[in-house]
């Protein structure tokens, strides 16, 4: 008799504990979704490995001890800015003065 009473009490205690846990879980807010970074669309197409040339370019050096920074052209921005500007060059570039032709005959 006594053995049956203890078993029933233990069962009741376990059931109450399970109900309590379920209730506690139901009351918590749903976890916020983690933010997945979205890749921005590139503004320029990625550079191709090979120049658009009729002939193959010289082989890309595998290692380059000359490379001083991650942005190697930064210290020469003005050079690039001017020398890639066709209009500016057409205004500034001067044809070399033709030197007096002193030589005679085929070279």
């Amino acid at each position: 008799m006594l053995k049956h009473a203890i078993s029933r009490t233990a069962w009741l205690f376990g059931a109450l504990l399970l109900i309590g846990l379920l209730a506690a879980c139901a009351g918590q807010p749903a976890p916020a979704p983690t933010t997945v970074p979205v890749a921005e669309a590139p503004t320029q197409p990625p550079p191709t490995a090979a120049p658009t040339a009729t002939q193959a370019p010289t082989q890309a050096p595998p290692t380059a001890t000359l490379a001083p920074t991650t942005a190697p052209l930064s210290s020469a921005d003005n050079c690039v800015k001017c020398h890639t500007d066709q209009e500016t060059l057409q205004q500034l570039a001067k044809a070399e003065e033709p030197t007096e032709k002193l030589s005679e005959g085929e070279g």
Partner: protein
Amino acid sequence: MPPVEAWEKVYVDPEKFVQNDPHAKVANCIQCHGGQGGSDDMAVAHKGVVTDPTANAESATKLCGTCHADITKAQVKSLHFDSHGYDTIISQRLGDAPASHAAWEQAKANHCSSCHTSCGQCHVSQPTSVGGGLISGHQFKKVQAFTRTCTGCHGSRVNDEYTGRNEGIPADVHWTKAGMACFKCHTGQELHGMGEAGNQTERYDGKPAPACLDCHPNAAPGQGQIMQHNIHGDKLACQVCHSVANKSCYSCHVQTNEKGQPFYKIEPSVITFKIGLNPKKSADRPWNYVVLRHVPIDPTNFDFYGKDVLAKFDALPTWKYATPHNIQRITPQNKTCDACHGNEQLFLSEKDLKPYEVKANQSVIPTRIPPKVGQ
């Protein structure tokens, strides 16, 4: 060579070079060319600029050699880079007097040194000797158009012969039939002076490179069905039968004007075809007969720089071993046996020589010409 506009000579193509050329990723403009960064003023920015940063061995090794070590190491000692072939040949004619050598050194500096090439003058720009200028927006190319590079320097003989610019003389069959650019035969190894080419003291040192047999192995004696190849064996260089009339030059006199500007005067060239004895005969070049071309040497070439500079003028022939770039399968001399055999006009003789060069050429004048065979 078509002219390049002044602006185009210095135009850097943003797509071809800045964005896509691997060389733009490893060095910036100033690291190679010098100059001042951070200034909008053209004069300030250009202060100290070096237009051809690979023109001397030290800078070429430092810049190109960092990544292309093997090539650069050979290149800075190659015939192309320092033109030491001139020294090899001219020094044999110089007198023993120190003054002769000093005069030659001065003349060479004034007139010959501009004919050397740098890394940049083949891979990035036109040669300086034809005005320089970027070819393709500063893009580095393993192979630039040969019409912008090779023939800039090798023009009046090689290019005129190869592309058929000598009136009445056909272009080379490798050009007309196959459109082959220079690099098809002349490899990077050879042009950079790598391997055996690194030992050359002048153009025709060592084994022929390129050799006709590299591509035509069946033309070797005993290796094919063509009777003439088998009969003549190693007696004739390929060009004796397969090249045609080519350009000979005479008497290039060099001097400077009152401002120190160097210049030359050379006699009009002459189209010739002369067969003679092989002045370079060796195990590598075993032929008895080769084509000869007159080179523009004469005893007074360097008189402006000193008296009797070429005191040993007779040490070498003035008719030089030649490989004319106008190869044909059928030529006037190989149409029939007797087109060549017994044809005195084809063979160099004293009648072809000026008085000052008779002694110098005795070793290349055939003592007898092959007799007619009746075919």
